[in-house]
Every structure is written in C-alpha cells, then in structure tokens.
C-alpha cells in the first residue's frame, strides 16, 4: 500500500442538500495537494469528515491502510492527522506558549521536549514576542499562525489546512508558505484548502477541484486549473 490517506466514495447529506457526493481520491506519503472549489462546494465538509469532526453518510477513509472512518478527532490526531479550521480555533484564555504545549503534551511529548519544540515553532512563525500573551488577545492573523503552529507540535502524518491564508497579511502569508514548502521538502504531506490560486499554483504540484460536492478534476495543478469543467465552475457560477 503506497497510499497515506485513501478516501473512498465519501458522501454527506444535510437534509436534501448533498454537501459531499461520492468523493474518492488517494494521497501518497509526502504529497502536497491543493483542494479548491467555489464557496459551498463541500471542501470544509470533506475535511470535517476526514478529521472526524463530522460523520459521513457513506464511504470509507483509510489512514496508512487502516480503516479510520468514524473515529473521533482526538483519536485521529493521535494517529497523526492534524487539522486547521477555517474559523480559527485556539484556546483564548491560555497563553500562546500553553496553547502549543496542549498539542505537544496530548500527542505524547515529554514536558521539556514540548517546550523546546514550542519555542522553536514560535521563532519560526515569528510570534515568539507574544508567547506570554493570552491567545485571545492576539490579532486575527497571529491567531491563525498560532493555530497553524499547533498542528506541527508533533510532526503529523498529514496536515489538513482549511484556508490558512484567508484574511492574512502578505508577510505572514509568506511565513506560512515558506514553512509549508520547507516541511514538504522534508516529506511532510498536506491537504491545502485555499481560494488563493497563485499560492495553490506555487505550492501544490497536485490539486483537486470540487464543485457542488463532487470532484470535478484531480491531477496536476496546471491541468486542473485549465480543465474546461473547472473554468466553467469558477466563471460560470456554481449553477450546476
């Protein structure tokens, strides 16, 4: 088995609305995959199912070849699936350092090890100067960086990032994309959801485009972005 994560026929309905419709794809170890699609096309819902925050109606998901459909988020996190939410989620009444330590300790690092790692990440993400501030007092962009950091306290098997660049200043965006590129070079696998096409083109060798819950196109990013169906979905509105 060469597949790191395998998604097979995953479907999710909300009442009459099919938010994710029979989605199938594989992610190989070390792959960096862009997940794109118009608003409401089901990207976040798909990530929610992958990370265990939502249970799908049909389909199976395997991580490292082992079935993990319906596992709780905390179980998946411990198996190496880390996830960044579209609407930032941090611990507002704990300080920045403790925010990182939670991930580290919960994922089995010893106290000292977690501290070293956290401080390293704070430096790398350039938020070390606010490490003793309560996370709730950070700016929106700093919160995103912090949540981003939480995903890397222990090197994940796969990081699912839901629009990490939304509403972020270009310099911070640069910090994050440099981080992603560096980790990818070391063999870290990512799924990156973004509406920022230049970043997707720059970072992701492969992309998956969704529309109305379905996978429209999956392959080399340049091919995906030029596929007629994709152009249609983006320019012609999601009327389909």
């Amino acid at each position: 088995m060469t597949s790191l994560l395998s998604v097979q026929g995953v479907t999710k309905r909300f009442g009459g609305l099919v938010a994710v419709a029979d989605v199938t794809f594989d992610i190989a170890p070390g792959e960096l995959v862009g997940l794109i699609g118009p608003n409401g096309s089901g990207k976040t819902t798909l990530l929610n199912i992958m990370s265990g925050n939502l249970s799908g109606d049909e389909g199976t998901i395997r991580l490292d070849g082992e079935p993990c459909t319906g596992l709780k988020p905390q179980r998946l996190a411990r198996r190496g699936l880390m996830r960044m939410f579209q609407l930032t989620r941090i611990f507002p009444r704990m300080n920045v350092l403790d925010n990182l330590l939670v991930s580290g300790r919960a994922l089995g690092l010893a106290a000292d090890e977690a501290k070293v790692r956290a401080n390293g990440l704070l430096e790398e993400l350039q938020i070390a100067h606010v490490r003793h501030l309560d996370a709730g007092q950070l700016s929106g962009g700093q919160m995103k960086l912090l949540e981003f950091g939480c995903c890397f306290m222990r090197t994940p098997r796969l990081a699912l990032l839901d629009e990490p660049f939304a509403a972020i200043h270009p310099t911070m965006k640069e910090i994050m994309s440099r981080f992603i590129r560096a980790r990818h070079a070391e063999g870290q696998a990512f799924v990156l959801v973004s509406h920022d096409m230049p970043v997707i083109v720059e970072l992701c060798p492969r992309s998956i485009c969704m529309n109305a819950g379905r996978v429209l196109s999956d392959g080399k990013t340049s091919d995906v972005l030029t596929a007629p169906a994709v152009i249609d979905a983006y320019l012609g509105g999601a009327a389909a």
Partner: protein
Amino acid sequence: MLSGALAADLAVNGLVTGLFYGLMAIGLALIFGVLRIVNFAHGEFYMVGAYAYTIIAARLGVPLFVALPSAFLFGAALGWVVERTLMRPLYANIGSWGLMRDEYAVIVTFGLSLLLVNLVDKAIGPYAFRAPALVSASRVVVGPALMSGQKVAAAVVTLAALALIALFLRFSYWGRAVRAVSQNRLGASLAGIDATAVSSLVFALAGGLAALAGALLSPIINASPDVGAFPAIKSYVIVVLGGMGSIPGAFVASLLLGLVESFGAVLVSYQYRDTFGLVLLILFLLFRPQGLFGERGREV
C-alpha cells in the same frame, strides 16, 4: 385502571395547570430566544408578582382589576431594570466576560435569585401571605371536572394574556422585531432593529408575565419568599421540551407537562410526581436537545 370520568377530570385539571405553566414558561423562552441564556431568577419574578398583587390588593384595598395589571407592571419594571443593569455584558462584550458569557449569565441570574429571595425574606418576612380571592365562587363545574373558582378565574385571565401575547408577537412591529432578533441578532441589527431595546423589552415582558402568573395563583398558593422555586423549575422543563427559545413549542410543552403530571401522579406515583418533568428534561437535553419541534445547527 382509569375510569372515563376520572380521566376527563385529570385531563381538564392537567390542561389548566398547563396554562399556568405556559404563562411562566413563555417569558423564559422569549429570553432564551433573544439572549441565549437561561434566567435562573425567573421564579423570583413570579414571587414578586405574588407579593405585589397581595400587598396592593389586600393591604391597600385596591380593586382586583387594578391590582392584577399592577403586578404585571411591577414584574415588567423589575425585568427591565435587571436587563439594563446586569445583562449588558452579554452582548456588549464588556471586559473578559465576553469569552464566558454562559458562565456570567448563570452566575448573575443565580445570584439575583438568591438576592431577591433573601431580600423579601428579610424585608417582608418568611411567612406566607394570604391573598384576596379573585372570585367568590368556591367550586365551578368545568365540562366533566369540578374545579375551584380561583383556578377557573385564573385560567380565564391566563388564556386572555396568552392570546394577547400571541397577537403582539405575531402582528406588532416589536413582536416581529423580537422574532427577528431571536433568529439572528447581528442580522436584525443590520436591518435597523434595535437589538438592545428588544432585549430590554423581552426581559420586561418575561418579568411581567411571570409576575402575572404569581399574582393569579397567589390566592391558591400564597406568596412566600421561595414560592417561585417550584414554577421556575417547571418552566425550565418546558423550555427544554419545547425546544429552547421556541414560543409555540413552549406553549405546547406547557400543556403537555400539565397533562403528564396530572396523569402521572395517579398512574405512576404520587410521591415522585415532581420528578417526572425533571427526568423528561434530562432525557430531552441528552437525546433531543432541539426539543419536540426544533432543528439543529452547524458546529464546525
């Protein structure tokens, strides 16, 4: 087993009790709808109404048709003051309670309940107050059931009050504003509705209705400092069964709870009759938090 006559009697009594519950619970549901909090001092509005009515009518000798509305107004004024002084941090994001609004709401309303109970206990006294009767008839035949005249009179006023509230919420500008803010506070504000004023209004209405309930029932259950505890718990059960914040849901659930208790006391256990509603509350919150009719929203 149950004879037909007894069943009919239980049904009528249960429905009438349910009406009283409704008067209490609708205010609580309104508050939850608009502010997303449970008012743990709701029973004290009831208590205040019972005292206001008893004192105004019995001590000052004011006629009933003035005393009852006065009790309503008194409760409404109290509700309004409470909202203005204590509820503002819930939506103004004052200080660090912004992150802990649920906790703040529980603590403050809980503290308010303690304050009012003990204040009345010290200022007026711990003993029950006898209230003047609403009507002089002691027994009235209602369909298949025989009921005390007080209860029938109170039920008639309650029905009238509930009808007025329903009309108000349905057709008046402020009624529509209340419903709009319940659905989406931010959206309603953007549409030009004064959400803060709506919160004040809702608290005043809730206080007034609970006070009216206390006044109406005071000839039957005399006013005492802790007289509100019991109706408050009933209204918690009702808002949960009805789906937190739903007004029609609360009304239906009130009648239902009245019936469940009335039949349960005879069919299941008289001794434990007051626990039925509480058990229902827990079961609902665990398995159907959206209540009898509601739907669930999105979390992640």
